[in-house]
């Protein structure tokens, strides 16, 4: 019997167990339920009927529109903030960052409740603009998740690259589009993935701002509460594939851009 020897590789074990128990196994269960019928036979009818039902596709489109809008607005708001914070010559840079991330310390239902009252004050009746209110509340909710990764990638940005751009005669818009933006793509991508999926599924926000139209998350919830595990799991699986697809595409874009950089 050989003596037990500690190996650095074994440090990964706790996480591996966690991964298998709480990520891989539930995922397999979701896939199993998603592609079987209520008798347990493998079936693709649920899958097919999802894509042929105009109401289901409508929900997918509705969630997508919300998610894209929220992500784009978050990005437009967060990028200048993150840039100024990262590049500005402030003494306590991180304290300023804290101010922007501070809302995350308060429970989000509490924050949305407060925002709801402010919006009611401004609009009079929230029920007239459910879509707009949803987007506003989600942007408010998810903005810190966009600022953080952008800030991190922009602080790491090599200043000499920007200076080189100016030295070669480029003006600020050109430096921004040709130097700063491409170099911060990893930050943008991680910010986008942090915001996009929650925006497609977080139906609590919709409930709270009185938007009675379902998004993908509410659809999953409603199927589960009527004991329809198969359809609920199917929609989770479709969302999963959707996000997976998105990640692959963005990865391709990033590696392509990095390839171009190397060529330069």
């Amino acid at each position: 019997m050989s003596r037990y020897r500690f190996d650095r590789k074994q440090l990964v074990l706790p996480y591996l167990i966690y991964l298998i128990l709480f990520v891989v196994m539930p995922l397999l269960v979701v896939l199993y339920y998603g592609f079987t019928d209520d008798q347990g036979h493998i079936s693709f009818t649920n899958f097919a009927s999802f894509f042929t039902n105009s109401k289901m596709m409508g929900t997918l489109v509705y969630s997508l529109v919300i998610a894209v809008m929220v992500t784009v607005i978050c990005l437009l708001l967060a990028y200048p903030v993150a840039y100024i914070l990262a590049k500005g010559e402030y003494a306590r840079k991180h304290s300023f960052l804290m101010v922007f991330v501070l809302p995350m310390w308060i429970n989000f239902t509490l924050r949305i409740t407060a925002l709801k009252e402010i919006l009611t004050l401004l609009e009079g009746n929230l029920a007239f603009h459910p879509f707009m209110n949803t987007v506003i509340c989600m942007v408010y909710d998810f903005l810190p998740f966009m600022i953080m990764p952008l800030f991190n990638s922009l602080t790491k940005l090599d200043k000499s690259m920007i200076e080189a751009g100016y030295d070669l005669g480029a003006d600020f818009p050109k430096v921004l589009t040709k130097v700063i933006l491409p170099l911060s793509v990893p930050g943008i991508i991680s910010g986008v993935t942090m915001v996009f999926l929650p925006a497609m599924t977080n139906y609590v926000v919709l409930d709270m701002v009185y938007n009675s139209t379902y998004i993908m998350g509410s659809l999953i919830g409603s199927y589960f509460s009527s004991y329809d595990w198969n359809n609920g799991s199917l929609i989770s699986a479709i969302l999963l594939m959707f996000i997976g697809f998105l990640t692959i595409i963005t990865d391709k874009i990033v590696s392509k851009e990095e390839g171009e950089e190397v060529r330069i």
Partner: protein
Amino acid sequence: MNVSGKMKCTLLFVACVFLPSLFVSGCGGQEAEEVTLRVCNWEEYIDEGGWDEEELIELEDGTKIFGENNLADDFEEWYFEEYGERVKVEYSTFGTNEELYNQITLGDVYDLACPSEYMIMKLMREGMLVPYSDDFKDVSQERNYYSKGVSPYISSVFDTLSINGENLNSYAAGYMWGLLGFVYNPDEVSEEDAAHWDLLLDRNYFRRITIKDSVRDAYFAAIAINCYDEITDEAFVGSPDYHDRLSAALNRTDPETVQAVEDILIDAKNNVYSFETDAGKADMVTGKVVANEQWSGDAVYTLNQADEDGMELCYSVPKEGTNLWFDGWVMLKRGIEQDERKQRAAEAFVNYMSRPDNAIRNMYYIGYTSVISGGDSDLMFEYLNYCYGAGDDEEATVEYDDIDYFFSEDPTGDRYTVVTTEDQTKRQLFAQYPPGSMVDRAVVMACFDDESNDRINRSWTNVRCFDLERLLF
């Protein structure tokens, strides 16, 4: 000694198997004395005690009622005094009937639970319940407070409901009951408008009314709108089997009806403020909405809250017909497991909750109406008088006398009358003890079969989803 790997495994295995059993047998002696009762109830659905001193209820006959401790803790003490046996209540809560059902079917074990009528029927149909014992129904025993005190009206409603040829009375003991209606702001909504379900479609209240975000409550409102002409027809109302026919009409689930309901609900969705799960109560008080589909118990809560803010809200029950709902205690097979001591403790728990003073404590604390009318004790009626009886200095008083159906075996009798202020006939008193004329038009919403449920759930999804077709064509 060199212990080999295999041996180590064996030792470990032995330890794993036998050590826990040692603990179990170690506790065995104690277990024989103490019964554990696992109770699962709705959130905030029992008196949790901790009342302020001024909350003491002092009835006219001198009875004082005060909630010092949690009622479940009080039960443990009472059970020991009464039966000489220790019982430990493990109390947990659930948020919706579906959540409770999921918990039970996914393996959580409870002895006693308190679902709503349709879920009781579903559990009965699936054979998951234990019937109450003959002992429980013996009215000659002093401590059988439920059988002695349950309202004859509730008992008769239970009698009309049966699943697999068995009566609901044998499997369930009622807890709270009420009617579905509207809380409304009398300054904004007229009494007449609030007395019909089509208030939900009324353009005058565009985006100012909420409807419940629950399939069954929304479905009921829409089906009542759908067959309004039929059920208000004079020949229909005057027919001798009116109540049965009303119940049949409001429980329809055929495809045409479901389609019609879907269309009505889509119209409603485009007219109401929102579908709400819990926000409606607060939104009534803050004035965001002017009417709100609500169960009577929550209505009382909302009205009380509004009173504190100096705002007067009212409650109405649609005249054409409404939903009679109740929650009741059922014993679960998987928990009781033919353990007689456990069943006795469970039945004692129901009886303790049904003792008039405890029923009053629960009513005071949660705002719902107990199914207990008191039997030979007049405490429940005294409490009603205590809450709503008009003082001598009140000027505009009325006699509210159509409540004999609830308190007395003789529904046409005239024994129970409360002199109250005029506004109470549209407010808390009306919500807690609706007059017999309203109750005659209330039907229980049945537990639908799986096929109908599928149809209704699908239609509900259709109502709530964004329709791509409408956008494209």
